[in-house]
């Protein structure tokens, strides 16, 4: 079989793999020998973006560290569906302590490993990844996260953002997008759903810590995600990766639409995909086929109140404005080359 440089062939780098792609250009996920860091038999909902995102990210980190990896995990869906006694899905050394302390636990692991490494400098070096949901990251775990950032501990923290506290039954978190319905921001009253002007975008806050690496990704762009994990593992110090992981249950989407929803979030500009080093934006994943925000919102029941009984044109305009602002701010139409 002959390989051709990826630029011109059938699917470019958009698919997971491809028999025609030079082996070194294939994704980690394309390999029959990938780690499957999180094994089959987990209890995530059908089509769970978080289960997928976690395998993508941790497999990539395993690849980058040649299997020398330890993971700390916050309470949340990922933890609950992967480790109910008597079975665990994890095939990597993994610890779950609490909901809000994962960054600190990872700091502790990193410190321990650093001491061990100093004592036995010829042993294989082991790296640390911390992971949690948006609630465990942007809300309750934020203090520990900021501390870890500020000390520049050698930890890659991965936030799986599904826009809410899903494990407890879909409540609002500070990562819940405006207008979205959750159990605590119901679609009632004059301003149904989550309010505008609240919430926070932790990647930007992470950048403000001037840590060596901050990036966002989605489960729809596997290669971008893997490249970011790889880059993150090349760097020492505190690193932050924020991955958008659609939640069929919480978003009210069909289980087969998980990747499509992530793709639409990126293509509309509502979720900017970019990377930054030492507080400066370095790249943006360009929008390929720009779409109006409605394309993303419509398939989601959490936004149903924006379309019926009467279309909320002004709210849609506000959301479009958010997308447009992202596009401008992160240079999403030209891949970050502002």
């Amino acid at each position, binding site marked *: 079989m002959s390989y051709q440089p990826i630029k011109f062939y059938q699917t470019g780098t958009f698919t997971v793999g491809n028999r025609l792609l030079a082996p070194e250009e294939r994704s980690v996920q394309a390999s029959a020998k990938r780690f499957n860091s999180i094994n089959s038999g987990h209890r995530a909902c059908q089509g769970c973006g978080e289960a997928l995102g976690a395998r993508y990210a941790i497999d990539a980190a395993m690849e980058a560290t040649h299997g020398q990896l330890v993971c700390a995990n916050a309470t949340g869906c990922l933890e609950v569906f992967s480790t109910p006694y008597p079975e665990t899905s994890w095939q990597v050394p993994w610890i*779950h302590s609490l909901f809000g302390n994962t960054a600190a*636990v990872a*700091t*502790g692991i990193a*410190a*321990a490993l650093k*001491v061990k490494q100093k004592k036995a400098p010829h042993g294989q070096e082991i790296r640390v990844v911390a992971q949690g949901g948006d609630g465990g990251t942007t809300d309750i775990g934020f203090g*520990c996260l*900021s501390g870890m950032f500020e000390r520049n501990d050698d930890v890659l923290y991965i936030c799986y953002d599904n826009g809410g506290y899903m494990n407890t039954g879909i409540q609002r978190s500070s990562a819940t997008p405006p207008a979205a319905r959750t159990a605590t921001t119901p679609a009632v009253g004059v301003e149904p759903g989550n309010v505008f002007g609240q919430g926070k975008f932790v990647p930007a806050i992470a950048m403000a810590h001037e840590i060596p690496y901050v990036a966002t990704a989605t489960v729809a762009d596997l290669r971008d995600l893997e490249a970011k994990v790889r880059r993150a593992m090349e760097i020492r110090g505190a690193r932050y990766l924020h991955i958008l992981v659609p939640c069929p249950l919480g978003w009210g989407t069909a289980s087969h639409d998980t990747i499509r929803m992530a793709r639409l979030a990126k293509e509309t500009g509502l979720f900017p995909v970019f990377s930054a080093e030492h507080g400066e934006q370095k790249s943006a994943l360009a929008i390929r086929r720009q779409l109006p925000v409605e394309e993303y919102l419509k398939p989601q029941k959490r936004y149903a109140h924006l379309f019926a009984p009467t279309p909320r044109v002004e709210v849609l305009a506000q959301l479009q404005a958010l997308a447009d602002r992202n596009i401008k701010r992160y240079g999403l139409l030209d891949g970050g080359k502002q």
Partner: protein
Amino acid sequence: MLKQIEGSRAVAEAVALCRPEVICAYPISPQTHIVEGLGEMVKSGELQGCEFINVESEFAAMSVAIGSSAAGARSYTATASQGLLFMAEAVFNAAGLGLPIVMTVANRAIGAPINIWNDHSDSLSMRDCGWLQLFAETNQEALDLHIQAFRLAEELSLPVMVCMDGFILTHAVERVDMPTQAQVDTYLPPYEPRQVLDPNEPVSIGAMVGPEAFMEVRYLAHAKQLQALERIPQLAAEFGQQFGRDSGGLIRTYRCDDAETVVIAMGSVLGTIKDTVDALRQPENGGLKIGVLGIVSFRPFPHEAIAAALKRCKRFVVLEKSLAVGSGGIVATDVRMAVTGMGLQGHTVIAGLGGRAITVKSLAALFEKACAGQLELTTFLDLDWKAVNKQLEREKAVRRSGPIAENLLRDAGVVAARNY
């Protein structure tokens, strides 16, 4: 080596001798001098092979210790009072995960009202968190207990709190006998974790356990503490042999052999109590048959040892620096449980809360009353009844009379309270 140093410094040096690998710290009085001392030793290179991490909260401190311990490093932290409460969730978690972390609690009252002085409310609030809790009577014992604590924790794979009275011990400059590194190394072997995060043998630590196994998990934690009841005296004995002094153990008795009345307490107040008992035993003071029982191990609680020690007495007085608001004594409850069916007269004395001085004079009066069989079931030592009653009156009259603390201060004539 004999040294005249501050209690905190003594503990810091002892901890350093234990070769900790990760220390995480967040400041709170009266614990600060301990971690400051350790930080300095790490930075100067005096303590090698150790990461000292300045964290952003006690919650993070315990969480870092959880991570480092799970990754196989000997881990240490220290806190007190509000700090202990702030880390509470992680404190329970460390025990649940069976991680042998050693933590000094420089005992201090809990607010509100905020108060920096000593009592035992902080560590006793964590009574059921699954940690072992050892109380030091002197600075020497505080120092020694830390060495024993690492050994105990790592053998059982359970975390241990060494409790020492804030200011009274932490800030007191006393003479201590500091062991050598060689001595400590002989007593305390390197940490061999029972479970560890290791890529060569990946496990998942911290699973979610449902009703089908949770009771068993809890029982096993309990069983481990019961094992500690056996190990603690053995380790203390071994320590005694090697270091040439008595430190630790489950309980320590003083002049109990013929005592009809036994005073039970924890921590530094035992010194004052022993002085008072010595005085009351003088024939010129009535030659009272009174003895003392110091509890070193509050968790696990040494029910049998206490029952055995009280076998010959008629009554006991539990003097404790803690109050189970709405119930009474905390230690006393456990002691009563230990002597169930022995037909003893038991008294609870709540004393020294928030640093209120416990004087020999007050104790002498109290013990005389006790020996005379006239002590009430529960006594609040040196309570200002005038102030209390006035407030109670006021409350009876007006349902809402404002914050109690402010009213009392006003009555006591204190213009402004100092806050820490």
